[in-house]
């Protein structure tokens, strides 16, 4: 949840207060710059991406959900800007260069994810309720591990969910047994399953948490 100060700042920007807008830029621009610089090795381009991010934020500010953190929203925008920039750059390089050593044009992997506005809105509508429930369940799970100081379990779950590693790969990364990872994952899955069930969500929304042995 954002703090009250952030909500007030957004409220003032929505009212057209230019100084509050400057305050928001000053607060977030460096961290956004460093985010872009992780993938883009050109200072001027990084600055451009940061500025485009702020303009995108400003043009959508009326619909900004005050329950969201500004930082998460801005990082979400710049992530897309950076990915788009890298894909465009690769496409340009490919168009002016011969095929790689295997004879394949390198741009074949980039798939356009553009979509019609109506599809997007239908998707957003459907997502809201489900996302909130899963978000709350995951937050409870993470807080549970942190409050119990069980960081090894949090690390295992994060590798599986966030990086998409298998149980075996997770065990290898953390230097623990495969069976231990399976047990941690099983417990976490049941925790989320119970939370979703208690929230009254239909079982077809997140089948991975209802079919208890699907991912094990």
């Amino acid at each position: 949840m954002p703090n009250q100060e952030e909500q007030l700042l957004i409220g003032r920007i929505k009212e057209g207060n230019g100084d509050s807008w400057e305050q928001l830029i000053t607060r977030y621009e460096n961290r956004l710059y460093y985010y872009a610089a992780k993938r883009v090795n050109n200072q001027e381009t990084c600055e451009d991406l940061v500025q485009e991010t702020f303009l995108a934020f400003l043009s959508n500010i009326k619909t900004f959900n005050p329950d969201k953190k500004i930082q998460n929203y801005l990082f979400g925008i710049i992530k897309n800007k950076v990915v788009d920039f890298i894909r465009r750059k690769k496409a340009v390089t490919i168009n002016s260069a011969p095929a790689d050593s295997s004879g394949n044009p390198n741009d074949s992997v980039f798939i356009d994810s553009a979509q019609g506005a109506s599809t997007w809105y239908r998707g957003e509508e459907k997502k809201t309720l489900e996302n909130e429930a899963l978000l709350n369940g995951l937050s409870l799970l993470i807080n549970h591990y942190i409050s119990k100081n069980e960081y090894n379990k949090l690390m295992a779950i994060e590798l599986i969910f966030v990086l998409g590693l298998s149980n075996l790969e997770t065990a290898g990364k953390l230097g623990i047994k495969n069976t231990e990872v399976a047990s941690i994952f099983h417990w976490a899955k049941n925790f989320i399953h119970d939370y979703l069930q208690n929230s009254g969500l239909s079982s077809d929304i997140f089948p991975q948490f209802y079919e208890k042995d699907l991912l094990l």
Partner: protein
Amino acid sequence: MTITNALLDAYIDDQLNEQEINRIEKALRDSPELQKRLETIIKDRDQGEHSVGAIWRREHLSCPNREELSSYGCSALDKKRMDYIKFHLEMIGCKACQANLDDLTSLNASGKEKKLSDKQKLFIKNSKIIASRKE
């Protein structure tokens, strides 16, 4: 290493490091089946389907806050929390937390806010005018 759908999902979200990205892109070039899987995942996401990983990444659920990252930079947290943040920064490769840490480190080094370039000053000036016209 297996390329799971969850790993492709992390690839779409730009969560992976450069080495992993290159590995996946090479595999995608070589495998029409993998391209098809990626296409399906993108289509599902566009239609409102979502994965646990996508939600976790988008909401930054396990990211430490700025105060904690600052303490991490000074080694002022207990060992378990220090180890976890190191894991989150390096093994998970969270770019948002890395960016925050770089920002904090630069602030600590200079002892003040970064000096703005002329281009940045001009942007602030112009965008302030746009912001003031919102209502």
